[in-house]
């Protein structure tokens, strides 16, 4: 069973590579239009030492932006769940932030925020925070009112009720949002680098390679960026399993038995 679960994504990867290779071969696509998987793979290998440190930079930006976005999203959701008027006023604004084409405001952001991490955090954060707000709000409003009443009947104060009853109920929807956000964060980092970078990362490298018509190099970068996004997604999947053991296990883990 476990083998099958691991095998299908692997099969999916091979399938994509096969279709890609086939398309390139059959339609005789030149490499400067679309390199084959093998050309892309060797471009990745050739430039590996350089790319590796660039990837670290992009990973860093995505990760920090992701954390900031998720943190702000979570805080907003909690505030909105508890203060009705905040919910009413903020919700349309949050919707609006998602309708703003981020690519279009990236350039002005640099001019306002400069070349540091700030504009990248804003861009990544803007992408990540929204699903977090929506899902955590869902989680908080989905709590069985009876459970809160039970806690109240035991004489528990609002802080304890929040920590022991409300908070854990948000974990599952929170992780759904985080999984998505982790995949999207990399796109945010790329947009951020394009518009505001002194420290070079993969996004910048991609531009450079593109301007030099090094298409295989561009695809190698895209491949690596995609891998980072998928890696983030998988990391969140693992964290989810650890943080919400009751969803997948019958009994508590040994070191967590209390």
């Amino acid at each position, binding site marked *: 069973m476990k083998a099958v679960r691991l095998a299908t994504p692997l099969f999916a990867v091979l399938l994509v590579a096969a279709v890609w290779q086939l398309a390139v071969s059959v339609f005789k696509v030149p490499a400067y239009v679309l390199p084959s998987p093998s050309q892309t793979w060797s471009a990745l290998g050739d430039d590996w030492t350089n790319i590796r440190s660039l990837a670290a930079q992009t990973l860093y930006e995505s990760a920090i932006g992701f954390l900031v976005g998720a943190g702000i999203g979570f805080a907003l959701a909690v505030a909105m769940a508890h203060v009705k008027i905040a919910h009413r006023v903020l919700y349309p604004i949050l919707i609006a932030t998602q309708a703003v084409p981020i690519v279009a405001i990236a350039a002005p952001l640099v001019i306002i925020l400069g070349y540091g991490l700030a504009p990248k955090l804003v861009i990544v954060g803007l992408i990540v925070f929204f699903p977090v707000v929506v899902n955590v709000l869902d989680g908080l409003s989905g709590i069985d009112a009876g*459970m809160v009443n039970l806690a109240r*009947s035991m*004489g528990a104060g609002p802080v*304890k009720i929040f920590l*022991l009853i409300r908070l854990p109920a948000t*974990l599952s929807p929170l992780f759904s949002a985080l999984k998505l956000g982790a995949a999207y964060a990399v796109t945010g980092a790329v947009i951020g680098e394009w518009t505001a970078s002194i420290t070079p990362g993969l996004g910048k490298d991609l531009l450079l390679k593109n301007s030099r018509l090094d298409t295989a190099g561009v695809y190698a970068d895209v491949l690596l960026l995609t891998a980072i996004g998928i890696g983030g997604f998988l990391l969140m999947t693992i964290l989810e399993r650890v943080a919400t053991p009751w969803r997948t296990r*019958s*009994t508590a883990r040994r070191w967590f038995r209390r």
Partner: protein
Amino acid sequence: MTDTKLTIDGVEVRFGEALALAETGLEVKNGEFITFVGPSGCGKTTLMNVVAGLQRPTSGRVLMDGQDISGRPGHVGYMFQKDLLVPWRTVTGNIVLGAALTGRATNADRADARELARRYGLGDFVDHYPHALSGGMRQRVALMRTLAFHKDVLLLDEPFGALDAQTRLEMQQWLLQVWADSGRTVLFITHDVDEAVFLADRVVVMSPRPGRIQAIHDVGLPRPRTVDTLLTPDFMELKSQVLAGLYHHMEG
């Protein structure tokens, strides 16, 4: 042991205009087992909420051991109709929930919880999450949680409503054993007249519009009670009395 544990003194509850519970009084003796029956909406849950301190009465008050506890939660163990087990806490974690919510669940609390679970047949499940338990087991854990909250008075609101007839009978007998072990005072809501009579020292029949106590029946059946009790003429007689009171307004 026969002094008054709980006094419901002229309690009335209104939601806006609506009178959910008309002025109601009841004295409950220490260690007594009282069951409440009555049609939906007659204020049974409202009355429990008042005793639990979750609902402040519009007028009147609730005394426990002579002290006014109206509107002050935390003095009774309250079990709701749904088991309301916290999905992310194990059986042990759920049993010690009261301690965790009001301070810190100590290792002693957890040891006690495990002992309780063991004593009442859930020893193999102390580290299980609720989703892995059957309905009957969940209900049992919910009751243990209420017991482990260490209050002299237990309020049980239709605790067995969701169980099938056979599991229900097992749970009733188990509850009677627990009650006998611990000597606590129990207020128990049910829709099932058999259950009400089978468990109680006194059966309180309530009626709606407005919610009020309509009659109180003393149940003199000897204890311990078993399945056979259900078939005795005394039981049948008592049941028909309660039923007659409960449905007399339906036949008009």
